[in-house]
């Protein structure tokens, strides 16, 4: 299997160099860009497997790149990378189609793992992102928020997490890996992954106002 082809987008050369060094030989870095215009051109030319996308970019932000290329490159996966951006911006990138979100302080091993996971079409939830999801989706559950959400039968769709999904998110927020979650909940890793994918889909598709409002008043890391 050929190594994953990765494209780096970050406006700080030092961060790009650091990420490149941490990715090491596990992946093949096919290009770098420091702003929206060069990123769009470079990604279009190199059609990478995974794009590591800085949330905050000169020229429109990470989601501008994503929105431009999403439809054009359906096989490219996107992983948001951020240091201290407003939750609003992170959520904007995820809702635009990123498959996950990691912070720039992530360890090399975790970053490689996240890239591999995204390349395999999994989703990557940092504990903070999981916490955000729980917070945003619990903030305005219909009448009785927490107990109702625990009951899978009352899950009406995009606007609520199922009980299982909540459990998975809680364990992710507690720092568990997918494998450990599977062990705790007596389900397979694949099932955990599909729960996580569902949550991400809800995060991307739900049009609850509370989501945006929460993001506007809170920060992820």
């Amino acid at each position, binding site marked *: 299997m050929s190594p994953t082809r990765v494209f780096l987008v970050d406006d700080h050369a030092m961060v790009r160099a650091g990420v490149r060094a941490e990715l090491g030989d596990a992946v093949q870095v096919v290009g770098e860009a420091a702003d929206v215009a060069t990123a769009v051109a470079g990604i279009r030319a190199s059609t990478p497997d995974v794009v590591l996308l800085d949330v905050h970019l000169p020229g429109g932000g990470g989601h501008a790149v994503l929105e431009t290329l999403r439809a054009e490159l359906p096989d490219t996966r996107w992983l948001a990378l951020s240091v*201290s951006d407003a939750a609003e911006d992170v959520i904007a990138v995820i809702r635009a189609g990123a498959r996950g979100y990691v912070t720039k302080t992530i360890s090399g091993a975790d970053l490689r793992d996240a890239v591999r996971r995204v390349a395999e079409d999994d989703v990557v939830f940092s504990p903070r992102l*999981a*916490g955000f999801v729980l*917070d945003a989706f*619990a903030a305005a559950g219909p009448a009785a*928020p927490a107990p109702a959400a625990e009951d899978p039968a009352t899950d009406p769709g995009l606007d609520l997490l199922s009980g299982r999904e909540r459990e998975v998110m809680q364990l992710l*927020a*507690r*720092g568990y890996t997918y494998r450990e979650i599977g062990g705790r909940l007596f389900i397979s890793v694949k099932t955990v992954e599909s729960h996580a994918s569902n949550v991400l889909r809800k995060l991307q598709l739900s049009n609850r106002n509370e989501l945006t409002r929460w993001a506007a008043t809170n*920060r992820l890391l």
Partner: protein
Amino acid sequence: MRLRVSRGRAGVAEARAAAGAVDVPVEVMPPRCAVDRRPDIGEGPVPTLNVTGPRTPGDHRCARSSRGDTIDVVTTSTAPTAGPPGLPAEPLPDGRLARPPLVRLHSGRLLAGVASGTASHLRLDPIAVRIVFVALAVTGIGVVAYALLWLTMPAASADGGAADAGIVGQRPSRRQLIGLALLAFVAVGLVSRLATFGGSDVVLPLLLAGAGMALIWRQLDADPRQSLTSGVARWGLIGGVVLGVAGVVLLLATTGQLANARNGFTATVVILIGIALATAPLWRRLLDQRAEERNARIRSEERADVAAHLHDSVLQTLALIQRHAEDPTVVGRLARSQERELRAWLYDPTVATGGTWAGLVARLVAEVEADHAVTVDPVVVGDLPVDDAVATLGQATKEAVVNAAKHSGATSVSLYTEVTPTSVTAFVRDRGTGFDPASVPGDRRGLRDSVVGRLTRLDGTATVRSAPGEGTEVELCLPRGEQAEAPA
């Protein structure tokens, strides 16, 4: 005059620098200094420098430095009260600057501060100056001189002294009232004398117009930093205008010139409107410039704030990091605590200071990271105000995190807390060595007393999950029960 001081200082500094740097040029310096100074001292007494003269370079340097000191003393003593009477005979040419500047003083003024300012400048008793003014006023020259001085003398800035600033905007003192009453008395006398020549009809209008003028002048003459739109000032101005206009109209009416004046008035208004229209762009530009300048000032102040904060925090930390470059643990800890501090300053001033659970967690994480070589990643879902039970939960959580930091051997600890309507839960997880909870000896008090014990006293639960090699997770749960508030 001020210019002279600065030049004198610069000269001294220059000379000092030259004298300090090389020994040889010192012998060359004195003549140049003297030449530099000659224009300044032309009208003054003979300068010491030339009288004593440099005997040796060393001597001269001392003399010069003492000179410099004197200049410093002089410039700091420009306060109005300074200056002993005998000073004109002082030996130093620049000593003439010790005379207080000719400004209108706010403190101790009777009318506009002209007399008191002049007296202070001349180092005379204000009473004497006032008497002279009054005496001259009888001939008319005094009034003109007073008016001219009033126009040309700058008002003393309010920051000249605390006492001075305190008086600004206060009610007129008794002395001031007496002075004004005297002046009014004199004015009435003058006007009534005038009335005997021109007929008594003009007395009232003249008085009205005069009073109006006086009111307007008093208000506009106030400290420029006091807003003209403030209540008292505005009413004063309006009253002055009304009085003045009434006076003028009455005057015109009594002299039968009202019809003529109306024509003249119309013409004047037309001309004024024309001028206003023609110069409108100029006014507009002036206003814009003022706004721009104010914005620039605000920006530069903000910049200075940010710079000050960055200097006190980030730059200091960077310096520390450079000094500890060989110790990754210290560097990491410094960077992390600085990052947390900066982040709080940038984004979360309320969490950092407010008495909520999220703020409490952020503080306890900061404390643990400062004391132990671990990183803690807190994830907080929901929030609530801190009460006694929550504070205790915080202490137990901190103890659990400290335990993980001390005994697990892991370099990072996950902390997750969730606030629900029914409970507050906290999970502390590490991926360290772990242990078998059943085999912990009874005398190990850390977890049992300070974590489990605390929670049981609050009707909460504490669960420890651990196995050798698999890390540890402590789960703390505090029911919220009757004090359940709406989730924040």
